[in-house]
């Protein structure tokens, strides 16, 4: 019961916060709501025994990505921003389509059959701690993707520099 309650709270808050994020006229507000949203999601992860994920959710998302967003948002002319409408003219179409999609996805989810149960039972993970279990996997079984991810980050670095640096020598 407590779990349901807990979930209910998180779910409710996450949805409300999501809505706030996408509907606020002032981008700064949106970013702020999003920050709160990320914390809630991190909470949910904890609730699902994914401590490490919860941590990077906070660190990477809330800490890095959102700050980046905030920086850029602050470049904007907020005054003008607030005076304008936040939605494009075709927003009812967007609402309609996403609404219907939601309905169809949810209706389909009813026929979900759970997949095979794996070896990482909650107990097993707990005994090893989540971070360690994940780390082990990352450096053994998932070494290859991990390496690719590093390249992605490298590309991101190059890209950010190439695109955003004021002067480049050529």
């Amino acid at each position: 019961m407590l779990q349901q309650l807990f979930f209910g709270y998180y779910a409710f808050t996450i949805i409300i916060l999501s809505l706030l994020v996408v509907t606020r006229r002032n981008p700064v507000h949106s970013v702020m709501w999003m920050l709160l949203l990320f914390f809630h999601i991190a909470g949910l992860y904890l609730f699902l025994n994914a401590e490490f994920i919860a941590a990077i959710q906070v660190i990477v998302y809330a800490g890095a990505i959102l700050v980046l967003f905030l920086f850029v948002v602050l470049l904007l002319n907020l005054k003008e921003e607030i005076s304008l409408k936040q939605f494009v003219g075709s927003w009812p179409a967007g609402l309609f389509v996403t609404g219907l999609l939601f309905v169809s996805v949810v209706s389909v989810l009813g026929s979900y059959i759970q997949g095979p149960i794996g070896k990482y039972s909650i107990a097993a993970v707990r005994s090893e701690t989540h971070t360690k279990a994940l780390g082990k996997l990352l450096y053994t079984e998932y070494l290859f993707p991990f390496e690719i991810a590093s390249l992605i980050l490298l590309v991101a670095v190059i890209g950010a520099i190439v695109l955003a640096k004021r002067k480049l020598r050529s």
Partner: protein
Amino acid sequence: MPLIMPDLKPVMPEIVMTVIAIGMLLAELVIKRKETIGFLTIIGAGIAAFTLAGSMGTTFGGMYVSDGYSTFFKLIFLVNLILTILMSSRYLETLKINFGEYYSLILFATLGMMLMASAADIIVLYLGLELMALSTYILAGFIRYDIKSNEAAMKYLLLGAFASAILLYGTSMIYGLTGTTNLRDIAVYIAKAELASNPVLMLSMIFFAVAFSFKIAAVPFHMWAPDAYEGAPTPITAFMSVGPKAAGFAVLGRVFLTAFGSVRMDWAAIFIPIAILTMAVGNIVALSQTNIKRMLAYSSIAHAGYMLLGVIAGTPDGLASMLNYMFIYAFMNIGAFAIIIMLRTETFKGEDIADYQGLSKTHPMAAALMLIFMFSLTGIPPMAGFMGKFYLFMSAINAGYTWLVIVAVLFSAISAYFYLRIVMLMYMKEPKETVQLNSSPGVALALVVTVGAVLFIGILPSKFLLFARLAASAF
């Protein structure tokens, strides 16, 4: 847990590519002449191509597979890479965006594609896709001072991210259903648990289809393509029109034929309307374009539609015909872009279709080459484009999709109209103003290679067909 050294042979080309990419990044610090970097890149790509030969095998716990199929695609990627680099250096100079990062980014993008082609696990697939996509986003926005380039990158990135999200949503569903992300395991589990008619599986399949359709620019998920193609630097447009599309097809083929092989009729039913729409919209909208890059963007959309026929057929022949077409398409499309690049000077954009008016008078050779590429894209023998289409149609008919082929041939007849318009302008109109050709040895070499390939494959396609067929059967 002991750390076992994985078998690195299958990933040798990728390792070579990574080394070169990073090497180029460093080389840029010491080498001032950018042509040299380009040259080194080509050599590197050549080495990578050599290592392809002995790279067969599966590694990283079945996550990564190097087979004929992936090798064929990797060959296309490398050809694409080399040709793009050949065309790039002068163009970059002309536009004053001659940064060394360009080469490593293009290498990373190619690396991403290679990873995609070999990915046997959705995680690798996703990461490869993102590596390719992120690099391409940057490359699309490489003309930093140009608003169009910015806009192209922006649109490409945002819509790309949107598509990625959809892909991931699909992934999460298939993961939830099967508890795995390995394509082969997914297939095995679907068969075992009799999930074939499960709506969630269907939904996840749809999301995969949508995400890949986005990458190959199939209608209605093509909307980014014309804008991104138009705004991006022209060599990158050429690169994008072949590379990511081919990579998209690579994963599309692999995912749908491996993971969803047992529900072929279902996903064929998804792709048939998509293919028809793609051919229709691509060919029809191309008719009224005034910008040649944009026109080729629509043409590339249309070609994706034809290639989908091969996938829909779902037979080894179908796949082989798709591979073969992709290979041919790389040459003919890049060839056409090479001409466009030649027309670009500092002051003259040369992107308007009207700029081609009377080209045969001012530059007969360029016009003749363009003519060959245009007829090849139309699919008129003895150009390679015909052989490609022909094999595609053949395998689709063999798989029982005769009516679909009839639709396709009719649309391909429509496509003649806009390709011919270029030929018509070049040959049948008087030149408006004198167009300067911004030729360079690189572009010239690229043209020689492409036109040679287009004619050679057009007349003697036997070896290539066989190679494609082999690649498809070693799937």
